C-alpha cells in the first residue's frame, strides 16, 4: 500500500492559513505526524490560498522537504499550474521524486501533463474522466483509464510511474459509485500487464457523512481487495492504516506474523 498523505491541503483551515502566512512549523508538524503514521508520499494541495500558486507550491514543497525526503505529489486541477510547478519544484529539489496529481483523459491535458512527467522523471495520476465529466458507470471509467494508460506509456512513462484514479464520489450523493470504482479497478487490472497502480482520494467517499472514519476504513479495505494499491488518505488515522495493512496481510501481500503491524512499521523504519 502506497500511502499518500492527504493532510497538506489548503482545504484544511490550518494549512490554508499556514500557506497564506508562510508558517512552516504548522505544516512541518503535520508532515511529521503523517510520516510517522506511515505516509510514503506527501500530497500537497494549495486549496483556495492567496498568491501565486506556483510560488506557493515551491514554498510548500521546500517546507515539507525540510522534514522528510519522501516523494511529493503536486495536487491541482489546473494543468498549467501543474506543468510549471513540477518544473520549478524539480529545479529546487532535484533529488525528490515528484508525482503529478492529476491529469484527465482529455487529449490536450494528457499531452501537456504526460510530457511534463516524462521531462521531470515524475509519476502521474490519471483521472478516469474526459471532457464529459466524471463517468456514472464502469465502462466509461475503464475506457478513460485505458486511454490514459496507453497515452502515458507511449509518452515514455513506465507502468510503475502511472496511477489511475477512478474517482470516488460521496456515498451520500452517489450511492452506486463505490461499487463502480471497485469494478473499474478490477477490470483495468485484469486487462493490463503489467498493470498500472490504482489510487483513490479516499476521504471523498465520506464527505459530510457522520460516520466518515468508519466509512473510509471499510471502503479502503474493499478497494484493496479489488486491486487498489495506493490511496490519498489520512496517514495519522491509526485504525485506517491498520485496517489497510490487515487487508494486505489477508491478501498475502505481506507475510503474516503475530506482530504484523509492528513488522510493517519496522519495515518502514518507523518502529
Amino acid at each position: 500500500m502506497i500511502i499518500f498523505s492527504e493532510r497538506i491541503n489548503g482545504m484544511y483551515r490550518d494549512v490554508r492559513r499556514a500557506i497564506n502566512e508562510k508558517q512552516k512549523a504548522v505544516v512541518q508538524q503535520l508532515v511529521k505526524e503523517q510520516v510517522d503514521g506511515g505516509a510514503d508520499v506527501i500530497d500537497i494541495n494549495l486549496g483556495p490560498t492567496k498568491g501565486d500558486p506556483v510560488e506557493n507550491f515551491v514554498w510548500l514543497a521546500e517546507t515539507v522537504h525540510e522534514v522528510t525526503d519522501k516523494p511529493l505529489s503536486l495536487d491541482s486541477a489546473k494543468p498549467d499550474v501543474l506543468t510549471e510547478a513540477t518544473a520549478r519544484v524539480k529545479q529546487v529539489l532535484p533529488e525528490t521524486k515528484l508525482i503529478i496529481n492529476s491529469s484527465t483523459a482529455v487529449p490536450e491535458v494528457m499531452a501537456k501533463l504526460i510530457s511534463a512527467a516524462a521531462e521531470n522523471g515524475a509519476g502521474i495520476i490519471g483521472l478516469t474522466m474526459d471532457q464529459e465529466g466524471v463517468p456514472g458507470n464502469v465502462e466509461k471509467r475503464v475506457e478513460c483509464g485505458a486511454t490514459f494508460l496507453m497515452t502515458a506509456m507511449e509518452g515514455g512513462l513506465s507502468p510503475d510511474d502511472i496511477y489511475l484514479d477512478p474517482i470516488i464520489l460521496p456515498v451520500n450523493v452517489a450511492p452506486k459509485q463505490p461499487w463502480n470504482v471497485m469494478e473499474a479497478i478490477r477490470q483495468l487490472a485484469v486487462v493490463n500487464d503489467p498493470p498500472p497502480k490504482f489510487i483513490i482520494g479516499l476521504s471523498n467517499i465520506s464527505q459530510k457523512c457522520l460516520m466518515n472514519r468508519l466509512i473510509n476504513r471499510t471502503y479502503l479495505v474493499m478497494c484493496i481487495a479489488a486491486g487498489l494499491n495506493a490511496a490519498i488518505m489520512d496517514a495519522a488515522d491509526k485504525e485506517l492504516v491498520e485496517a489497510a495493512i490487515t487487508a494486505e496481510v489477508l491478501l498475502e501481500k505481506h507475510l503474516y506474523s503475530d506482530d504484523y503491524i509492528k513488522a510493517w512499521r519496522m519495515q518502514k523504519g518507523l518502529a
Partner: protein
Amino acid sequence: MSVPDAKERWSGKITTVTIGATPAEGGTRGSTVTLGGEAGIPFLSFDGETPNPPAIALDVLDVEPADWPGPLAQVYSDVWSDPAAWAKRVKELGADLVNLRLVSIHPDEGDRSPEQAAETVKAVLEACDLPLIIWGCDVPEKDQRVMPKVAEVAQGENCLLGAVTEDEYRTLTAAAQAYGHKLIALSPCDINKAKQVNILVTDMGYPLEDIIIYPSTASLGYGMEYIYSILERGRLAALSGDKLMAQPVLLDVGLEAWRAKEARTGDEAAEVWGPAAHRGPLWEAVTATDLLQGGCDLLIMRHPRAMEAVRKAVSQLIEA
C-alpha cells in the same frame, strides 16, 4: 520476434552475516565466514548473484556421542572423547566452521556446570581457529545459565549462538548483544513464527543484520518437503522486499539425516539398501543438496564425504 525477457526483478536481497573474527578484528580466528547476500532465486545466476556459496560446519559434541553409527564412528571415534581434538579433526577435514553442541550441560546428559561448558568452549577455541557455532541443550532454564557464561568467554570471537525462539529469547539475545555474537533464530517449521522471532529479537535492540534464520530441518523421507516449502516461501518473501525474512538461513542436516533409519542401519540391510558406508553419507548429501535449492546459506553436517559431495554439487550449480 524477440524472446521476451523473463528475468525476475527482485526488490529485496538476503543480508550478509559474517561469523568469526581474526586478530585484526579483535578475535583469534584464522578465517571468517560470510553468509548470504543472494539477490535472486538459489543458483539462478541470471536472476541474481550468489556472492557467498553455502558454507558448511561440521559437528563437534562436548561428550562422546552415544548413538553415532559406524560410518561416523570411523571418522571421529579416535577423537570424540575430546572436543578440542575433535575440532582439530573437523578443520583437517575441510569444514568452514565448527559446530559445537553443549550436549553435556543437559540435566539428563551429565548436567555439567556453566563453568565446565565455558572451559570446553575455551579449549575448542584454542585448539582450532575456525569460526565457531555454539548451541545450548534446549532446556531453557539450563541454557539461560550456561549461554551467558559461554558468550562471555568467547567475547571477541564473533561466534554464532543458538538458538532463540518465540518463547525463549531474552537471555540469549542479551548475551549475544553484550559479548558481540551473532544469533540463530529458531522457528520449528513455521514461517509466521520465523518472522515473529525476528520481530521480538529486533525489538530488544538486537540488529536484524546479525540474525540467522533456522526453520528447523527434516531429512529426506521424513518431511523434508515441509521445510523445503518454508525455505521457498521465506526466500520469495525476502526477495520481494520483506526485510524481516531477509536473513541467511541455517539447516541442521547432519543431525536429521543421521536420525533416518536408512542412514543408521548397518550392513545387515546391505543386500537391499546397499552398503552402510555409502548409504549414510549419501542420505546426508542428498538431503542437503535438495534443501539447498530452497534457499540456505549454512549447513551443519557430519560426514566429510557428504560435505564433499555437497560442495561439488554447489560448485557445479554456481558455475553453470
